């Protein structure tokens, strides 16, 4: 009897360790902790070029992540990319004339949307569109311009 109790305790420990490992993978080693509860609000922004921006790229204000890119679509009529930004509900005091730019973190890092708060009194609300946007800088275009200017000198 004592032997079978020992087996049961060891199996219990094994199952507990396995579940703890799964829990660890879900909470600590992945982005579950950064998933918001879905109570954020959504604004859109139009860009001429989004570079390497993808769904779930971060949205930052002053370097602090306040939301994620929820979707990227292409508008056939204006030939622009429409980016939907999902912003957490606690950051609902962004001014209406906030501008959005696409930057790269580091030289080879991922791309993110940087919001620059404006001066308007009323805040951004769900479904609003950010009017002032700046596209991502494409390295090849920059180099091309640089060479072109050099050649013109």
């Amino acid at each position: 009897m004592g032997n079978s109790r020992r087996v049961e305790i060891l199996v219990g420990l094994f199952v507990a360790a396995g579940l703890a490992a799964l829990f660890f993978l879900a909470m600590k080693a992945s982005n579950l902790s950064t998933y918001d509860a879905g109570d954020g609000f959504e604004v859109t922004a139009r860009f001429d070029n989004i570079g390497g921006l993808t769904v779930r790229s971060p949205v930052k204000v002053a370097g602090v992540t306040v939301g994620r890119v929820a979707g990227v679509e292409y508008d056939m009529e204006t030939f622009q990319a429409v980016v939907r930004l999902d912003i957490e509900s606690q950051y609902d005091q962004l001014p209406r004339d906030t501008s959005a730019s696409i930057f790269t973190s580091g030289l080879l890092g991922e791309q993110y949307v940087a919001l620059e708060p404006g001066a308007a009194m009323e805040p951004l609300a769900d479904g609003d569109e950010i009017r002032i946007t700046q596209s991502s800088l494409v390295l090849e275009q920059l180099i091309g311009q640089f060479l072109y200017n050099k050649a013109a000198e």
Partner: protein
Amino acid sequence: MLEWLGDRLAALGRWGLAAGQRLGRGTLFLLATLWALPGLLLRPGLVVAQLYSVGVLSLLIIVVSGGFVGMVLGLQGYNTLVGFGAEQSLGVVVALSLVRELGPVVAALLFAGRAGSSLAAEIGLMKATEQLSGMEMMAVDPMSRVIAPRFLAGVLAMPLLAAIFSVVGIGGGFAVGVGLLGVDPGAFWSQIQDKVDVFEDVANGVIKSVVFGFVAAWIAVFEGYDCRPTSEGVNRATTRTVVHTSLAVLGLDFVLTALMFGE
């Protein structure tokens, strides 16, 4: 010449028929095993005993291999990443390769060698020494008494073992990357949390390990049950369990990866 060709064709046909028959027997056997599973609710002790021999006793090899695989990933990943000045991403490299691929696959291969072979040998010996027929004589159904608990224990143990493998591996990568090579621990974890997706990566890895556990346990109990009741038959069943499980796991891994991450 014609006769020789006919003989070869007949041999090929015999082989094909035998393979088809085996596949059919295996499927029927699986259905019978699944049918016997609900009966285990009355006797959970049988599954616990098998979880001990299949899961707890496999822990040592899983933990040690996981640690070393993680450490090697840390060393190799660092050497490549440092060339791009991207050694901060070491955590992502280690965690993604473990959670998506190496955790489920290597754990399943070790599981086949450690637990699958012993399951097949045990059941095969039971058959060779006519314990299974003895049970039937006593009106005890060997399917629900012997096969189903072992099968269920394999299916349950595999995802847990794979998760433990991945976590220990990430720990190994952390030890080498942060302790030995001087990667910033904050960047190590924040990059992992940023890039590893719960559903896309972790959940898919768990699905993989469940599938592998199902296949590994199925092959092991079937090979044991279907073996010729001689010492040579048990020997071949054990070998076939390891070989077939490894092949099935690697093949299925490709299919599952293509389905999950192929887009």
